[in-house]
Structures are given as C-alpha cells and as structure tokens.
C-alpha cells in the first residue's frame, strides 16, 4: 500500500474524517466535557497557591499552565488505539486491509480530520487564558513559538504513535484497552498533565526528562508559558524527535508482526 496513493486520497480522507467527527453533536459536547481535567487541576492548584507559591508557580502561573495544558491536550489527542481494538474485535479491520491505503496512515488522517473541531474548542480557551493571565504569563519570544509549532506537531505524532503501538498490541492480546489504562497512569503523573514537571524533585525531574510522557504534553505547555530558553528548548525538541523515531520504529515493527499474526489466525 503505497504512500503515493494515500497522499492522493488524503483530501477526501480528511473531508470524510471531519464529517465523521462531527456526526454526533451530543457526543461532541460529552467529548469536550471529558477533556476538562486540566481545568479541574487549575482550580485545585490555584487554591493551593493562594497562600504561597509552589516553586515558581503562583496563581497566575498555574492559570496559564493549565489553560495551556487544556489547549495542548485538545490539539494532540488521539483515540486510534480504541478504533484499532474495536475493529480488530469485530473484524472490520479486514475491510481496511482490503483498501489500497495503508491503515496506519488512514488512522492518522482520521486524527488530523478532527483537528479543526479541536482548534475551534481551543481558541476560546486561549482567548480566556490571555485575558486572565495577561501577556506576561505567555512566551514572548517569536522564535520559541516556532519551536512550539514543531513541538505541538511532535506531541501529536508521539501521542498518535503511542496509540498505534498500543493498538497493535491488540493483535497479540485480543484487547489492549487495559494496556492504555496503564500507560495513562504514567502519562497523567509524568507528562505534566496533572502536575507541572518543574514542581517535581530535581532527581525525579531529571529522570522524567528521559521518558516519553513529557514530550506528549508538558514540553509544548512549558514552551507556551515561557519556561524555556532557546538552548533548552532545542535539546528537549531533539529528545522529543528521538522518542517519535523510537515509537515510529516500534509501531512499524508491531504492525507488521501484528498483521502477519492476524493473517495467520484469521480476522
């Protein structure tokens, strides 16, 4: 299944994917409500910081951080693992395999197709964030926004690869939904989603720096809130790229092995 035929079909894949993403209006509202955990954490942490700052975080910094977290989470979310599990269990993966478009690219396209809706949800939050914290709580260096743009694409890619890799595990375990639950435990704690990484004890933080979780969400959030100078930002961007490469390789390997197994045992 060639990249060329997939690229040619991409505009239609995106258009149909978008139509599918907005098919259920009620589900859209539930989905938006389901991703409001950063706003809950915003309330909790600002209450904690009311008496005294936590590390470098006072009330405005926590507000900026968690509103940025909400935006980054919207822009990098993926549910490909769930789709893969569903399609493997009910056998509709066969229909994907019969199309001359690589299924992994089709999953990626479906993720991208939902992006306009996610951006639409994020823009009002970004406006509120700016109004609440003012321009001082936001990165003011244009070049760092360029790095942020790369980091947000990287965070989306990394999250997608994690989803696809865990989805591929379903080829071997019949269902990998619990595996994602396990991943999310670490993700919530070690990515900066619930607790800013800066607050971690130094030794734990240097350990977290080498794990993939931070590059899924914390890193772009830190860039938005002006936590990094350019040299640090580039080092972290390189680490993010390394994790993407690792997960890309692992996903390709798992997909090939998984499809071979699916083809051996039946779908």
């Amino acid at each position, binding site marked *: 299944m060639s990249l060329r035929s997939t690229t040619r079909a991409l505009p239609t894949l995106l258009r149909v994917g978008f139509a*599918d993403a907005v098919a259920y209006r009620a589900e859209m509202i539930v989905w938006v409500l389901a991703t409001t955990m950063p706003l809950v954490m915003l309330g909790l942490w600002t209450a904690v910081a009311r008496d005294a700052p936590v590390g470098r975080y006072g009330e405005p910094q926590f507000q900026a951080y968690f509103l940025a977290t909400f935006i980054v989470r919207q822009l990098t979310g993926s549910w490909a693992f769930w789709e893969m599990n569903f399609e493997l269990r009910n056998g509709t993966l066969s229909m994907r395999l019969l199309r*001359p478009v690589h299924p992994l690219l089709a999953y990626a396209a479906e993720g991208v197709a939902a992006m306009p809706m996610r951006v639409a949800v994020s823009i009002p939050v970004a406006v509120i964030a700016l109004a609440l914290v003012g321009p001082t709580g936001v990165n003011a260096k244009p070049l760092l926004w360029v790095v942020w743009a790369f980091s947000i694409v990287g965070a989306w890619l990394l999250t997608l690869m994690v989803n696809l890799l865990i989805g591929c595990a379903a080829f071997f375990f019949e269902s990998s939904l619990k595996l994602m639950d396990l991943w999310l435990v670490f993700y919530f704690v070690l990515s900066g989603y619930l607790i800013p990484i800066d607050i971690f004890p130094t030794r734990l933080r240097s350990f977290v720096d080498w794990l993939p979780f931070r590059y899924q969400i914390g890193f772009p959030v830190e860039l938005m809130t002006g936590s990094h100078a350019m040299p640090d930002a580039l080092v972290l961007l390189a680490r993010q790229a390394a994790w993407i490469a690792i997960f890309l390789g692992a996903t390709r390997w798992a997909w090939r092995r998984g499809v071979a197994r699916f083809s051996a045992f039946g779908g």
Partner: protein
Amino acid sequence: MIRVRDLRKHYKVHERPPGLGAALRSVFRRRYKTLAAIDGLDFDIAPGERVGFLGPNGAGKTTTLKVLAGLLHPTSGEVSVDGHEPRRREDAFLKKIMLVLGQKQQLLWDLPPSETFELNRAVYDVPRAEYDARLAELTELLQIGDLVRKPTRTLSLGERMKCELTAALIHGPKLLFLDEPTIGLDVSMQVVVRDFVKSYNERSGATLILTSHYMEDVEKLCPRVIVIDKGKLVYDGALDALATRIRPDKRIILRFSRPVDVADLAPLATVLRHDPGETVLRVLKDEVSAVVARALAQFPVDDLTVENAPLEEVMSELFARGRPDPERGPPP
C-alpha cells in the same frame, strides 16, 4: 484468473474443557490443537466465471475466500489471482478485487453511504467521470436514489446491503468475492441482490465467487460449484451434473384442474407431497417420459414441470455420505 494448488491453511487453537478448574488451569498452561481449515485444495477459475463455494458450516469456504482476497496467509500451497500473490496485498491487486462480507460492512456507520462511495473513489483513484457514470448506473440498477443521503445507521439491512454492493463496485473490480451476501435479507431483497450480481457479471465480465447458505443464490447464480467439506475438495464441476450424480431421480410437479385422490397417484410414482394446489412425484430419470405420458392421459393435468431434486437435498445427501474421494466433474 485464479490458480490454487495444494492450498493448506492450518490454525492452532486453544482448547480447554468447561468448568472453573479448567479455566484456572488454562491461565497457567494452555493446550493447543491444530485445525486444518483448508487441507489441500486445487482448483482453477477462468475470467468471467460465476462459481459457488458450497459446504457445511466450518467447511473452509470463508477461509478460502479470505486467502484469495489476501486477508489470510496460507500455511502452504500456491495461490495466484490474476498474476498476483494475494498475501502481498499490492495496490494493483487490491484495485482489482473486492470482498463483500454479508456480516461485516465497509460503509461508514454514522455517515450517509454517499460519503463511503466518495471515499472509495479517492482511495481507489477512480477518475471523476468514470465514478459519476458508474454511480449513476449502480444507483439505477439497485434503486438506491434517496438512500445514499441518509446516515447508514438508519438504513434497513436490505438497504444497507444494496449500498454495500454499490460501495464495493465503485472501482469496477474484475474479481468479486461475495461471502453470504443475502444473509438476513427477506425473499424479495434476496432476488434483487441476486439479479443485480448476475447482471453485473454479465455486463462487466467480472469473475464472481460466491458462498451462501441459501441454495437458491447458488442455483440462480452459479453454473459451476466447488464443494468443500472439512477443508477438502469434494466436488468441482457443473451444478446440474452434481445434482444428477447425487440424486439421479427427478421431480414431476403437477397441478390439477380438479381434486385427485392420492391413492390413484400412488401406482404412478412415489408421491412426495400432495396438497390441494400441487402434487410432487419422485421418479427415476429414465422413467420420466413414461410417467409424464401416463399422468397426462389419466389425470386432469393443468400444469406439469420436471425438475432436478432440490439442491438442499442434494447437498444433505452429499454430506451425509461422508467424504468421498474427490471426484472432479467436468468443467462447465
């Protein structure tokens, strides 16, 4: 078009007895058994043929279709489909084939079928003019006019199958695999689907391979059948020849202008059914002419037809005999 030699597909399946103890033991130690879903199949199918795969449940029909479509990798043997090795699933191969699974769908559930058609146009790279012409033709043949704009989830089973067929044929496949395409459909919808599939084959010259539990599908569509039982070839040849060989007797169906006593019919032949509207006699093939002549002379016959034994009976008898040595019938 299709060449299959010594095709085998074996599965290793986990086996455990019922009960809590066995369930717990299976957590630590599993026993596996190897099952031969396909066990040495050989056949060839020429371009444009309509072939029915017949066999009881678990015979290996769907497995064979999936191997031919490239979804399953054979354990051993040779499979060639229009010059391609299906397991490689090359673009060129995928653009030539389509597999319609009666119990699985490719239509996007929450969107109208027109979106799936459009998606297939893009992924199969069908030129716009060709797509428009083919869609117009399929829409008319299957009468799906307004359906294509309703979300798939709101369509009835029959409506969905018509749209599934449309989606499957948007790219004009040269080879169509149909696995139970009429399953769950009412009788009139079965006729619509059957007629459509036949007409598609005749107009496009596409090769058609069908599995169905409805013998009528096979009778109406497939001059040739391949019968599989426990993964082995039991028969490959003309459907008529199979019926004649397994059940050489014929059915004479009579309709009378006034009531006739069944006792009067008994000397004529074995009476299989005697209803007010219709009487069915079973006679040996060689005696058909004589029995027909006597029936016409002795009874007030309004209508008379002679048929082979129903395919259901032929198949039941074939499988009840156990598995004979593969005897190949003549090619159709």
